[in-house]
């Protein structure tokens, strides 16, 4: 038995010899929440585009490794991937944390190992151990959603609309921000609105959203004027339910994020609008910040400017075909975009 182990180790040792890092290449590991959503593919393209631009503009070689858990709620696997990458060496990590608090320990481990971590997409409850937060301003996105929806309702003469806020999940920081932005703005713009329901949760999949939305819509089918669903799966599930109950187009749905079916629903009028993020820009800028930090630049003005917003955009039936909107998700148009990047001073320079 021991002889066998020794033989295997010998093979391993002989193979490991002769493998060395190329010294002048920076390796940036991009760790999304999951692998299957189109959102993360845009992040990946943005990161890779940034690497290509860096090579073209200043001859800097950057390698992007895109490595994430297969499923969005596989919390342990994301921790594993972080630890793996920290242990095996990289120059920077771009992380979309699945949870704002449980991911703190491994981010700290990365920081202890001297790796800069750029947090994207969702917040992390430990601002001391990462170098930049590149994300959509989700609160503002919620505000935009409320402004658009209330405007549409007023156009239809509904000055005292009856609303449903269909929440996503407990503990999800980004969607809670959207919900809060929506609630605050709607109450400000339309104090007389009636809130039929604000305490139901769609869960993480389109399926679970349908299961939850079904009884909810049925209960209020005679009253409800509009529903806000704070992400793609909850919006899609809501539309599915409205269609099955023959209420599509009659009840206004405001969504967040996009997918092909959701964009079709916007074109057909089943969804009145959605707020789009710019994941391509998110991937681009986060990679940019990680590289700049690695090159000794002060990317957060000595920890006073941690946040970098990537913008949020309302998509409606009118602008859904426009190049600026399509450039947010269409790979071909993404490739033609020019991303403006912030410039940073050298670290250690006196403030």
């Amino acid at each position, binding site marked *: 038995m021991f002889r066998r182990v020794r033989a295997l180790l010998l093979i391993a040792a002989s193979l490991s010899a002769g*493998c060395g890092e190329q010294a002048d290449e920076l390796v940036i590991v991009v760790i999304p929440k999951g692998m299957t959503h189109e959102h993360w593919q845009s992040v990946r393209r943005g990161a890779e585009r940034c690497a290509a631009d860096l090579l073209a503009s200043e001859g800097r070689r950057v390698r992007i490794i895109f490595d994430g858990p297969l499923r969005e709620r596989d919390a*342990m696997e994301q921790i594993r991937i972080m*630890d793996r990458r920290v242990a*095996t060496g990289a120059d920077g990590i771009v992380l979309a944390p699945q949870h704002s608090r449980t991911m703190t320990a*491994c981010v700290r481990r990365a920081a202890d190992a001297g790796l800069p971590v750029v947090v994207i997409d969702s917040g992390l*409850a430990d601002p001391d151990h990462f170098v930049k937060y590149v994300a959509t301003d989700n609160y503002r996105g919620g505000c935009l959603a409320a402004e658009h929806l209330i405007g549409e309702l007023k156009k239809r003469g509904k000055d005292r609309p009856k609303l449903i806020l269909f929440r996503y*999940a407990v503990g999800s920081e980004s969607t809670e921000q959207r919900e809060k932005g929506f609630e605050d703005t709607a109450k400000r713009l339309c104090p007389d609105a009636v809130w039929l329901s604000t305490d139901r949760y769609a869960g993480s999949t389109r399926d679970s959203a349908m299961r939850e939305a079904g009884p909810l819509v049925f209960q209020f089918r005679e009253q409800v004027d509009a529903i806000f669903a704070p992400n793609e799966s909850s919006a899609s599930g809501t539309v599915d339910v409205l269609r099955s109950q023959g209420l599509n187009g009659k009840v206004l749905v405001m969504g967040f994020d996009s997918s092909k079916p959701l964009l079709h629903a916007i074109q057909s009028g089943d969804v009145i609008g959605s707020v789009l993020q710019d994941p391509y820009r998110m991937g681009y800028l986060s990679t940019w910040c990680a590289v700049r930090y690695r090159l000794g630049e002060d990317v957060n003005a000595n920890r006073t400017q941690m946040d970098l917003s990537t913008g949020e955009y309302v998509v409606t039936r009118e602008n859904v075909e426009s190049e600026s909107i399509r450039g947010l998700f269409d790979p071909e148009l993404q490739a033609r975009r020019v991303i403006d990047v912030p410039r940073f001073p050298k670290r250690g320079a006196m403030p």
Partner: protein
Amino acid sequence: MPDVSPKRLALPAGPWAGFAAVLLLFAALLGYEGGHGTFLSGGNLEVLLHEGTIPAVVALGMLLVLISGGIDLSVGAVVALVTVVTMRVYTAVLASSGSGPEASLTAVAAGVLAGGLCGVANGLLVTRLDLPPFVATLGMFGVARGLAVWLAERTTLAFPGGVTPDWVVTVGKTSFLNPGLLSLLILAALVAVLLHLTVFGRHLYAVGSNEATARLCGVDVRRTKLGVYALSGLLTGWAGVLMFAHSNSGNPTLGEQLELDVITAVVIGGASLGGGRGTVVGALLGVAILGLIKNGVSLFNVPVEMQYILIGVLLLANVALGRRRGR
């Protein structure tokens, strides 16, 4: 492995062959990938051991259950439940007593106990209600997962005030001297002793190999099985505590498909779903093989779906070869 006859040694033991095959595969990838080999770095060996600790502890329990001719589908859900129970108890004791060490000790004890109770429940369902283990533990799987979600109020529980106790930080850290890893080594040795040097172990193999014969020879089949599920539950409870530390949270969605991973590992390691077969070394090798595949697939930037395919193919090849040899 005391019960090794010349014949068994002469046939290259399945798990070793699998281990070699996976290593060779990644070795070939190393050559192909050229300069980016981080897979064989010392740091990664630490990572591999760290990642393997939890499945390995669960695998020790699963090994006992499989040898007895049973199966335990509830382990993943029980692990999740344990993380939630541990965090709940920690938070409650800390709030009432204000003592961190006291809260930690109580919470760990409660977590292990919760796992043990689930195991005893499985054992009672199997021995008293005569339910097939598949059904009994499938039921427990649902109950434990549901309890976990309920206790966690549908969310993920983090440490109160975001303050992580030191021991959790230590257990969560990748290191050759990780206490969780050391506990695994001790537990593995204990289980090996239990299996091969005690009457209980002997009776366990007998029950799995031929239950009727064991009964005829005066073996208390029920008590043996109950003991097996209770032990498996305690081990799963300990794994849950480790998961609690690794994940830094009480999270009811943890451990999804852990049961399948662990059963796969133990079967690749030479245990039989029919019972009567299996060793600690084999089970640990099985976990190592699965860990290598997951780790390697990630580090070589092989598409993640390959991980599932590789594991599936390896399982089939291993068992098919094992059966052929058995003839």
